[in-house]
């Protein structure tokens, strides 16, 4: 499992793996927002938590189809399926690799982008915390979506259509934590719900992803 994890991460970091792309995309989305809504500082700082969450979510989405696509094309997914490793473990490792290489950099970059949007000082801690708690759910749900569309030739658009509705609860609670944090309100309830969704998704969805992978590899 660890070997698989290190291999996936090395592939992602190496050139062409798209490691930096997600981050660059996040940056661009955030930079585009003031052009769209105007440079007024008060407005920007009010919408900053939501914009940062949506930007992180979209950047996460961007790298999803890469989770299984390469392994599917060169046949190593079939090899993995015959390896003495349950499919569930493969799904977990894939999701973990995606989280470490795609989501974690976004979490770390978010405060820097918060500066661009004039995020209130109180918001930084909650922004990082909400992203750190919420992104595992995004990675696991995304892995499920990637597993669903793995055999399809142009699955990218379909993948977004399938995954985005599933992201709704995570986004609502995550952005709510960040927003309330920035406004200095109590964040305990949405944070607990966000953590609950993450924990539930991480615990249960790998089984669904594994079932889907088995069907697709038949």
């Amino acid at each position, binding site marked *: 499992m660890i070997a698989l994890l290190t291999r996936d991460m090395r592939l992602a970091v190496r050139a062409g793996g798209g490691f930096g792309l997600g981050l660059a995309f996040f940056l661009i989305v955030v930079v585009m927002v003031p052009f769209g809504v105007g440079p007024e500082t008060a407005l920007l700082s009010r919408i900053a938590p939501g914009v940062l969450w949506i930007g992180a979510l979209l950047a996460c989405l961007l790298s999803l189809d890469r989770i299984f696509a390469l392994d599917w094309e060169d046949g190593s997914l079939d090899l993995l399926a015959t390896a003495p490793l349950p499919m569930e473990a493969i799904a977990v490792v894939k999701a973990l690799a995606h989280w470490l290489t795609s989501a974690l950099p976004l979490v770390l970059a978010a405060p820097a982008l918060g500066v661009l949007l004039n995020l209130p000082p109180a918001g930084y801690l909650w922004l990082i915390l909400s992203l750190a708690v919420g992104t595992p759910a995004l990675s696991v749900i995304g892995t*499920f979506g990637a597993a*669903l*569309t793995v*055999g*399809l030739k142009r*699955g990218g658009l*379909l993948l977004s*259509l*399938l995954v*985005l*509705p*599933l992201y*709704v*609860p995570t986004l*609502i*609670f995550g952005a*709510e934590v960040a927003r309330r944090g920035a406004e200095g309100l109590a964040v305990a*309830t*949405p944070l607990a*719900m966000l953590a609950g*969704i993450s924990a539930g998704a991480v615990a249960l*969805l790998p089984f*669904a992803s594994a*079932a*889907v992978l088995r*069907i*697709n590899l*038949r």
Partner: protein
Amino acid sequence: MSFWEYANPVKFIRTTDRLLPWLSVTAVLCLAVGLIWGFFFTPDDFRQGSTVKIIYLHVPSALMAINAWLMMLVASIIWIVRRHHVSALAARAAAPVGAMMTVIALATGAIWGQPMWGTWWVWDPRLTSFLILFLFYLGYIALWSAIEDDDTAADLTSILCLVGSVFALLSRYAVLFWNQGLHQGASLSLDKEENVHDVFYFPLLVSIAGFVLLFIALVFLRTQTEIRARRARALQARERLA
């Protein structure tokens, strides 16, 4: 004589062929009676004026939008557990009907909202949940049509339906938490003394019956089509091999 006999495609087609004319006639009859009764022969509500007549479309379609998804969920579980093709195909057949019901509910709701709330759309929990439900329908239908192999498509979409149901439910509660709404509470419920007033209640019931029957008739017809299309594909594949 057990329910599972209808899992045989031939038996299903034969039975539904016999039922379909009756179903469609009663569906059209109920719809016509309910809607004409509601449209022409009910008084205006003293607060909402004539817009109350939209209820005969809005409530039944909203009910069916949710029930269609539940039916797809049940059919998907039956497919996963018992591997009856008719079940998977029925779920596939129901999806566009459910999506249409969602659109009707959303459209009539928006048209009703404009004079009553002064806006076409608010991000109210109920409205938002329905929009999310519609997105789920879209994803489900898109996944069905993207996969060529019938059994793989049935397997994948049924798992998507299961996972989607959980997340749709989660979204419902998330949205409730996120925004308190303008939408009134349930118009119909079993445990309440007073539902909507009797004058509106009976035509509404007839029209709900009409929507239910319409849904069943459409699902039967579309399931037949899916069964035939599947058989045609199988025969063509065999021809190519021979």
